């Protein structure tokens, strides 16, 4: 009954007419900002990836050359696989930890609000600052073993994993807590009465019901993993490097975003178009991964 009322009121001409006539006033500024701040740069960027340029207004069309140079750059190929590995590992660890923490903090233990705040707080610190802080922490430990985080690719990799976990677990935890609190208590009660164990309740009732949260969190942590930049720059900046026989560098802990940035700025103008091509490839990659992942997990969600 209630449902029909609201539908009726929405379709009333008294409401619909002003929306139809004045809607642009509300949508307009946002649309304009979206075009200026997103659509224009986006298409301009795609165009520039086919050009040789120094500044964005001074570009010469050269065709697909930038793409072939990007795809044959061993540093870029390395950064791609390294980033993919990093994104998958960080996705799994972050979500497992975040879910576990959220689960325990919704069991009514004492001081859970305090814990939630504390776990969330690292998320408020900027990436560059975090990178330097953790660099000091890791160095404090590793120097005891006569080494440092810049010495081995493995150290850089796990160091960055620890850093992003510390930063993002709290954020994902908040989303999971919201999801866990929305699980209908009558279902859990019913399961209890039927004699389901705690484990069975978790697997059969809780997890299917928090599937929307899992979708959001995996999506966020996957795309965060791919887009990581500040922390990567501040923690290792790609060190240690390997040198190929021809002397070209492979920065073994450099991720995609940092690789693109370094290509754009620290080489001469020839490489700017290449960096742009890399950025377009990067976009296609992140967007399609996100879509596939969204599609795959959406199907598992429980419709209430």
């Amino acid at each position, binding site marked *: 009954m209630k449902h029909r009322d609201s539908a009726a009121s929405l379709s009333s001409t008294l409401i619909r007419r002003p929306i139809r*006539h004045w809607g*642009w*006033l509300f949508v*307009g500024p946002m649309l*304009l900002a979206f075009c200026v701040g997103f659509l224009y740069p986006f298409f301009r960027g795609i165009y520039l990836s086919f050009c040789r340029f*120094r*500044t*964005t*207004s*001074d570009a010469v069309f050269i065709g697909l050359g930038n793409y072939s140079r990007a795809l044959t750059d061993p540093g870029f190929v390395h950064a791609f696989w390294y980033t993919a590995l990093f994104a998958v590992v960080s996705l799994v660890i972050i979500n497992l930890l975040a879910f576990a923490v959220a689960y325990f903090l919704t069991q009514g233990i004492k001081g859970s609000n305090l814990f939630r705040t504390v776990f969330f707080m690292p998320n408020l610190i900027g990436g560059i600052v975090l990178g330097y802080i953790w*660099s*000091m922490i890791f*160095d404090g430990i590793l*120097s005891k073993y*006569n*080494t*440092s*985080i*810049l*010495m081995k690719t493995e150290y850089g990799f796990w160091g960055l994993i620890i850093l992003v976990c510390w930063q993002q677990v709290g954020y994902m935890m908040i989303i999971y807590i919201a999801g866990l609190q929305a699980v209908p208590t009558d279902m859990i009660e019913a399961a209890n009465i039927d004699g389901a164990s705690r484990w069975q309740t978790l697997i059969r009732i809780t997890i299917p019901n928090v599937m929307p949260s899992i979708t959001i969190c995996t999506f966020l942590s996957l795309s965060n993993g791919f887009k990581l930049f500040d922390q990567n720059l501040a923690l290792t*900046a*790609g*060190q*240690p*490097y390997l*040198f*190929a*026989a*021809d*002397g*070209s*560098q492979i*920065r073994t802990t450099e991720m995609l975003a940092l690789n693109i940035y*370094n290509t754009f*700025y*620290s*080489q*001469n*103008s*020839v*490489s700017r178009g290449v960096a742009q091509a890399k950025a377009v490839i990067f976009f296609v990659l992140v967007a399609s991964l996100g879509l596939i992942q969204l599609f795959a997990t959406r199907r598992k969600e429980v419709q209430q």
Partner: protein
Amino acid sequence: MKKLIIALLVVLMAIAPIFAQPVTEAQTGSVYWLNFKPESDAVLQELAAAYTAETGVAVKVVTAASGTYQTTLTAEMDKEAAPTLFVVGNAAAVDTWGDYCYDLKGTAVANELTTDAYNLYDANGKLCSIGYCYECFGIIVNTDLLAKAGYKLSDIKNFATLKKVAEDIHARASKLGFDAFTSSGMDPSSSWRFSGHLGNIPLYYESVADGWTECPPTLKGTYLQNFKNLWDLYINNAAVAPNTLAVGGYDAEAEFGKQQAVFYQNGNWEYDALTTKYGLKDSQLAMIPFYCGVEGEEKAGLNCGTENCWAVNARAKEADIKATLDFMSWMVTSAKGTELLAKTFGAIPYKKAAAPANVFLAQANEYSAKGHYVMTWAFNYTPNVETWRAGVVSAMNQYDANQTDANWETVKTAFIQGWAAQYKAANN
């Protein structure tokens, strides 16, 4: 329809101020200087204000934050009001920005130069940028501490004597209360002193031997051993452990300022901080050349050169180009202009330059007067300089942590093969 017109008018009103521009400046021309030395910003603002007060021409000085000059320049050059005066300091920058450079040949300001040594030309011989100051670097010595350790400056004549003095001081460091060298941190705040400046040893000597006139496609690395000699001396005769250098975080300037070490590799730009911030006296300070075991190095002088070169934006409005050139010649000829430039940059290579008060620059001139050779800045030829240096730093970090021959081979690879790879990347 009426609504649509109203809507368009509203939008028009909203964006109109964006396009409104003051008309007056367009006629007389104005100057926009994109400066890349953060430490000079205050003086340059003063300079701009003085010029505006004298002539009424608007001068805007914008300083890019440390390490962001290239990104800032890229963004600013795209704007309607792009910089009219900017910095093109080495061969790679000429490659990138050459098209934007106004040919300065024969301009009033170029005619005031005392030397052609700091000017940069493109492949067609266009004068892309002219030096506006020059700098020198070497090993700064605290002569008081040296005396306390029982040595005189004249005891150090070449690498062998430098090594003897440094190793002796390091061995007695705990008794003396100071060490031989300051820390050689390899974090980005300090690594340029070594990948860039110390790296001038192999590059300079090779450039002389092979008579470089432009960036060579490959490097021989004949003098890399000399680079290693001095580097080994630095890291093994200091208060900090070599394997902590990669992460760094040390403050070598403060170590030297607080008299904790005798030797500190850096340049004349340190003079201000050492004398005002740390209160060292002129008589305590000296700068010696990079003694590294090259034959005939008793006649070496300091490393003098510049990456500070003015370029004028050829794509700016005619009136703005003229205003900029006028401003430049005012800076290097007027009493006020030369005084302020000398204050912030030390030595400027112009006929009417004010004498610098800087001890280190005075010493650079002394070495030249005594007939010692100047080690010019051969590193200005480096292809893709930041990428190449980053590779050298990474390889040196591995070596510092574990000083084996195998790790030194990687440093060599970063130098030699790295050069060839970056040359290729930059030139096709």
